[in-house]
């Protein structure tokens, strides 16, 4: 699996998000004020109602911002203490018990044990804390009302806003206090739970095919073993990865010539890949820029396909390609592809493709590698900083030949041709000048030759997007009748790994954000709803939040087949959902109108319900992808964006409520 979402930089995201937020909040409170006015004018007449709403608005502004930290702290600590004395610690004990016995029910034969452990522990933590906060918040304020303990609070110089904030703060504190030890235990569980090592079982034997290699096997531990390959020439042993990890291996040679291998703990099991995505574009079979590739008949149109041995290509544009992206002196691209075969092709090998880099401004293009597709997964391409064509080093890899018959040394000349056929080049240096095919220039610098310091492009709306340090990456399928499929996140540039512990922490921050949101919703709902209704409402928000994307789509009217009424009509008439309904009939018009109302309601709802799944970053941790700092910041801003209006709403609800009842 590839993590799909492309996280924009916080600087590009924030201004527009802030604007949208501000507008949504304004609309929400204006609506609230309007409704308030409507209802109170029924009771006290429009003039008085207007004055009342005005007064309430003024007081709200005063109360909401002029809170005393000391009082909020005292109320928060009260909440915290209450929960503690209600033996909330039991939840932590349950958690520890689950962790202790987890080993018994977690599949030991899983091919990805690290993923399993991480996602298990993250889910357990998240569900436990969320359910706990849901119940705690739903019970606390209503109980305060029922037992009338709130009477002794609000008759002190305590603002209602402080009561709301105090609750939120107290529960947030409690959640944090629970999550910190849970996080430590989880980290220990994930690392220690997979701790194991192997010993070398048997004497190494000479490889059948390669006289320079010796092979052997380790003992089985945790249901797997690794293969050892011993390079006789360099006298170094290698361990093949299995179950997403390998081990460090050390060899000591005794004077009698016997070798002793010592294996360390697992390495590369838990990592945090830092990846950078590019923007994808397509060339069709004739080499003309097109919006999409070919659909090979999948219903799920996630990946687009390109035909082999034509001019079709995937083009990814990466920006910010600077020497800081180099890992061990090279840019490392990882590519996940899907292969669609129209014929068996050659049985002995997989489908062959080409990987190229190109300067978007000059058009200079280089064939980096001809590769065999990998049915299961990933191909890795390394582009070194200094590129030496004549040495043939980089075009040949494990003996793959370009099936077009182009010799590897001429690859770049071919590549330039491809670039020209790309069609959208305005100018590029003449071939002679570069002399890529000849000898005069066989050496290229990756950054000087293939990265354009500045490049601009037009997006779908026709806006010009300027980017810095841009490089293009092309992939073509080189076999006739076969297809490659890829989507935007299938190609990424891999930077240096981030520390796993730090990523783990950021993953936990995701749970923390969810916990905060549940707490805030719970407290706010409990200001005007009874306990069971609060539980239901918060649950609705939490679960509904998981379908946020669908709700947003429905609200925007982007769901194919229309709203519920229209869909019902289609069902009745057995009409295909891609065909437009006949607009002349009466019931269609009415149902479209009803759907518009429904759509507005869903749109409204989609603003109330936060996209909970956005905060669930555990997948990044378990799949081994780094959670970018931008994303953490973004999620933080989002939580704050919900917290502020909800807090004000909670204040209003409590303020307008008679404490006595």
């Amino acid at each position, binding site marked *: 699996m590839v993590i799909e979402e492309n996280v924009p930089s916080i600087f590009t995201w924030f201004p527009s998000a802030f604007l949208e937020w501000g507008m949504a909040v304004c609309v929400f409170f204006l609506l609230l004020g309007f409704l308030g006015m409507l209802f109170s004018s029924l009771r006290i007449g429009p003039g008085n109602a207007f004055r009342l709403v005005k007064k309430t608005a003024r007081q709200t502004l005063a109360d909401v911002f002029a809170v005393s930290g000391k009082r909020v702290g005292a109320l928060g600590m009260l909440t915290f203490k209450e929960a503690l004395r209600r033996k909330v610690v039991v939840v932590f004990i349950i958690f520890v018990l689950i962790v202790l016995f987890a080993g018994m029910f977690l599949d030991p034969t899983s091919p990805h044990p690290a993923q399993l452990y991480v996602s298990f522990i993250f889910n357990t933590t998240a569900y436990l804390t969320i359910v706990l906060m849901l119940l705690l918040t739903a019970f606390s304020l209503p109980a305060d009302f029922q037992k009338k303990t709130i*009477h*002794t609070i609000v008759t002190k110089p305590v603002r209602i806003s402080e009561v709301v904030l105090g609750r939120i703060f107290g529960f947030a504190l409690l959640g944090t206090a629970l999550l910190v030890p849970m996080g430590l235990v989880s980290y220990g569980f994930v690392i220690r739970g997979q701790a194991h090592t192997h010993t070398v079982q048997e004497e190494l034997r000479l490889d059948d095919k390669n006289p320079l290699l010796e092979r052997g096997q380790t003992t089985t531990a945790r249901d797997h073993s690794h293969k050892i390959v011993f390079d006789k020439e360099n006298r170094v042993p290698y361990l093949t990865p299995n179950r997403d990890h390998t081990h460090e291996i050390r060899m000591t040679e005794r004077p009698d010539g016997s070798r002793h291998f010592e294996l360390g703990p697992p390495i590369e099991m838990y990592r945090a890949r830092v990846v950078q995505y590019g923007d994808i574009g397509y060339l069709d079979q004739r080499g003309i820029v097109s919006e999409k590739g070919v659909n090979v008949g999948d219903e799920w149109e996630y990946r687009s396909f390109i035909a082999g041995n034509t001019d079709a290509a995937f083009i990814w544009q990466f920006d910010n390609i600077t020497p800081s992206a180099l890992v061990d002196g090279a840019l490392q691209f990882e590519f996940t592809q899907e292969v669609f075969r129209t014929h068996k092709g050659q049985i002995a090998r997989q489908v062959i493709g080409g990987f190229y880099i190109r300067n978007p401004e000059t058009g200079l293009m280089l064939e980096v590698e001809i590769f065999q597709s990998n049915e299961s997964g990933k191909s890795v391409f390394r582009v070194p900083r200094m590129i030496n064509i004549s040495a043939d080093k980089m075009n040949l890899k494990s003996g793959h030949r370009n099936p077009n018959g182009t010799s590897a040394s001429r690859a770049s000349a071919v590549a330039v041709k491809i670039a020209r056929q790309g069609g959208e080049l305005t100018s590029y240096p003449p071939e002679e000048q570069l002399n890529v095919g000849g000898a005069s220039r066989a050496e290229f610098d990756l950054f000087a030759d293939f990265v354009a310091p500045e490049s601009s492009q037009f997006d779908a709306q026709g806006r010009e997007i300027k980017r810095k340090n841009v490089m293009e990456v092309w992939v073509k399928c080189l076999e006739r009748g076969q297809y490659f499929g890829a989507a935007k996140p299938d190609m990424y540039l891999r930077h240096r790994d981030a520390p796993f512990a730090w990523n783990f922490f950021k993953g936990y921050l995701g749970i923390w954000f969810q916990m905060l949101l549940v707490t805030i919703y719970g407290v706010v709902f409990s200001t005007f709803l009874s306990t069971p209704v609060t539980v239901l409402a918060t649950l609705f928000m939490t679960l509904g939040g998981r379908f946020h994307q669908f709700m947003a789509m429905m609200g925007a009217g982007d769901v194919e087949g229309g709203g519920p009424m229209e869909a019902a009509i289609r069902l009745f008439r057995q009409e295909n959902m891609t065909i437009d309904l006949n607009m002349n009939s009466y019931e269609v018009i009415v149902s479209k109108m009803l759907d518009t109302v429904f759509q507005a309601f869903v749109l409204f709802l989609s603003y109330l319900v936060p996209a909970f799944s956005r905060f669930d970053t555990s997948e990044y941790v378990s799949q081994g992808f780094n959670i970018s700092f931008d994303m953490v910041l973004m999620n933080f801003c989002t939580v704050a964006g919900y917290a502020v209006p909800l807090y004000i709403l909670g204040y209003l609800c409590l303020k307008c409520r008679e404490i006595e009842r």
Partner: protein
Amino acid sequence: MSEVVVETRNLTKIYRDFWGRRKVHALKSLDLEINRGEIFGLLGPNGSGKTTTIKLLLGLLFPSEGEALIFGRNASDVRRNERIGYLPEESYLYRFLTAEEILDFYGKLFHIPAAVRRQRANDLIEMVGLGYAKKRQLKEYSKGMVRRVGLAQALINDPEVVILDEPTSGLDPIGTRDMKDLILDLKRQGKTVLMCSHLLADVQDVCDRIGILFQGELKEIGRVDSLLTVKDTTDIQTTTLPDAAVEEIREVVKKYGGEVKSVGNTRTTLEDLFLRIVEESRLHPGRRAHGAGNAVSVPSEEGTAASADPSNGG
């Protein structure tokens, strides 16, 4: 000393149900003024609207009409609460805290500095006689003990106005006595006290003025001493006399055209007054009761109510 501290103007409360239908007319245009330094007792049978009045004053309920002011400000101005102490009808306290913690907590809400807070909490715990149990959670306390914490809590901010809703309920005789002493002590310190109680003897002892509510209406209001002066009755109280002497006194009274109604221990006259007013209000609903004495009262709606006969007379 005539600065008005607590004031209600035309204060009315109608309890409504969820759909806005009237359920109870709990308070009917109450006008009340309590001056600084005064101890005011609010009396009335169960369900007459005493607690409702107090909750309206404190902003726990919203008035249906009229205003309820303390220090001339209504409840939406929370700053005024800094100078108010409130002991609720029942002890609505957080049961999971200890006496010490609860006072510290309330102290924090008043922004009292830590050192002062600790000192005051200690003093108050000693004052209400709970020093031996201050480290125990309230849920382990008896009813009266919790009540005492409630009282300490009401005084944590050294308030200028103290509102006590049935302060002696649940207290043992010593506690009741201490409460009375405390209230008199507060008066000495110049504090204003508004209390309601069913223990009329105590009210009579401590209150400067009283008001009697019946079914949400103010039936009587005035100074205790003048309310209790029964002008057409003379009580004779002596040390115990032999029967012969009593006979002789009867003769003397008869000689002067009087009639001995009763001889014996004097009854609690506030109780008398209270029962009479309640009885009268029950017989003549909607009419301002006419108590004995020169009540400082607003004219009654039906003009004269003088004909009311003390039904529990003899």
